[in-house]
């Protein structure tokens, strides 16, 4: 445990000092997007890892937060903080509605329903001009400005994404040991048993989905600030699937995996596209390799390596779980 803490502290130190020694390209174009995609994927880790619900609508929810922010600040000319509140509210409410529709089904059916909902939102955004701006979407979206600095200035935005990423990550980890999180893990393993302990399983699923919508919305706001625009492309089928790919690459059941997967994803898309047009194929192959060779994703591989390392090089440490219960 102490060794793991040490490793985490080292990693944190590297991330905190990254803008001082990392190249502008890596800070701004690799790590920053990895962080906000990581947050969106984290909303899926929460649902899938704890609750056993694999949703493909997380990018839709993130995108809806972006649309909410854009509509309020650009179309209605409201200040940024109203845009933020509206964006988060839209994502959370949409997740509540999606949840109410989807939670009666499980497994692959749940996944299919979330895709369908995502596609409905996509079609709506594409066709509605007054709010969504139709095919063009909403352009010229600006991030909040504080003390004369736009929040999307490279270094500031990196730290913003890092702070939000750490906060959401910490929250999801904390959740594991709360009654909410424990019940969520319990319903993943045996919804019927949870029901005969007095829990309303459907309600809990909806609540978890709603919470994941809020998290996805946070990621969506960062995304829309980074892009400065939002259009239906942001929430098309490919983008929806990308989030699942990220989470699976990183390890669906691990909160860390969301960020690890996002980093790998952004790296592969950036570098593969520089030497081949077929970066989708690259991503597809990476995905396949992970699913075939390590269903637990990169987190699973990393964990195995780490425990191997600890066992061979360092003193034995008793495994200890973090919930304290």
């Amino acid at each position, binding site marked *: 445990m102490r060794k793991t803490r040490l490793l985490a502290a080292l990693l944190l130190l590297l991330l905190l000092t990254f803008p001082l020694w990392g190249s502008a390209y890596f800070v701004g174009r690799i790590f920053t997007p990895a962080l906000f995609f990581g947050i969106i994927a984290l909303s899926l880790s929460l649902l899938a890892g704890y609750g056993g619900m694999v949703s493909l609508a997380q990018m839709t929810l993130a995108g809806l937060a972006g649309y909410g922010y854009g509509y309020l600040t650009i179309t209605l000319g409201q200040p940024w903080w109203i845009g933020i509140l509206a964006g988060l509210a839209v994502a959370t409410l949409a997740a509540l509605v999606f949840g109410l529709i989807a939670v009666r089904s499980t497994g692959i059916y749940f996944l299919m329903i979330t895709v369908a909902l995502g596609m409905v939102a996509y079609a709506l955004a594409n066709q509605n001009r007054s709010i969504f701006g139709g095919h063009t979407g909403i352009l010229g979206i600006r991030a909040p400005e504080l003390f004369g600095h736009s929040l999307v200035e490279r270094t500031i935005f990196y730290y913003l994404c890092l702070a939000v990423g750490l906060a959401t990550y910490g929250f999801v980890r*904390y*959740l594991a*040991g*709360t*009654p*909410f999180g*424990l*019940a969520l*893990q*319990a319903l993943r*393993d*045996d919804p*019927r*048993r*949870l*029901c*005969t*302990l*007095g*829990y*309303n*399983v459907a309600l*809990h699923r909806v*609540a978890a989905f709603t919470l994941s919508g809020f998290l996805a919305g946070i990621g969506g706001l960062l995304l829309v600030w980074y892009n400065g625009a939002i259009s239906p492309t942001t929430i098309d089928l490919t983008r929806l699937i990308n989030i699942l790919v990220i989470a699976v690459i990183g390890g669906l059941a691990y909160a860390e995996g969301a960020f690890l997967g996002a980093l790998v994803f952004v790296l592969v898309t950036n570098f593969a596209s520089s030497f081949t047009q077929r970066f989708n194929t690259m991503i597809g192959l990476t995905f396949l390799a992970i699913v075939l060779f390590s269903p637990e994703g990169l987190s699973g591989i990393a964990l195995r390596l780490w425990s191997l390392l600890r066992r061979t090089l360092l003193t034995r440490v008793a495994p200890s*779980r973090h*919930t*304290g*219960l």
Partner: protein
Amino acid sequence: MVTVELHRSQTAARALELQGVSRRFGGLVAVRDVSLALEPGERRAIIGPNGAGKTTLFNIITGELRPTAGIIRFFGRDVTRLPPHQRIRLGLARTYQTPLVFPRLSVAENLYLAVRGVQPWRLSLRRPRAEDPERVEVERLAELVGLRHALHALAGVLSHGEQRQLELGMALASRPRLLLLDEPAAGLSPGEREQLTALLFALDTEITVLLIEHDMDVAFQVAQRVTVLHEGRVIAEGTPDEIAMNATVQQVYLGGT
């Protein structure tokens, strides 16, 4: 004595009352017109050969299955249309024929969920603290069912017998008024059986217990009355002695040919 019993049953609400309960699965009638009444504090065993409909009856009582006909009353209240989680909150608890615990959660977490399940704010976003009454209760329950040493073990790694103990602890965690036990002694070693019987004897006498049991020793020791189910029907009901003597029961169940 008999008149006193009758008088009591007429005034106080029964712990459980089934009236003409049936359940069919397609062409199969698993439970057929079953009526049953349990006085508060009563210990009742249900016996019957495999496929008699005992577990199905439990599922109907908890609400996991809807009856195709009939009424279920719990302490006088008609719960026939109530979903399971609401019946549990009224003071009903059960265990399963094959222990159902959450394998990837620890023993303590399993018990904690069971304690929280019947409380408001069961979906709280606040982590439990060491001094919380629920945590204290978890330790008491673990002690009670003899799992104190395994509090932090994952439930999935427990032996079959230990999982049964854990499930019993989870059922007691809600401080139920009516406890349904589906073959609690199945798969237990003779030693574990004795512990179980002792624990059942030591239960608060106010708790009404309905248990399904293949093991006659356990059933006839613990229960004051026995109901015999056969092909979904109640074919006999009485004291353990009466049931042991009953000719029909011997024919269908005790293997007397």
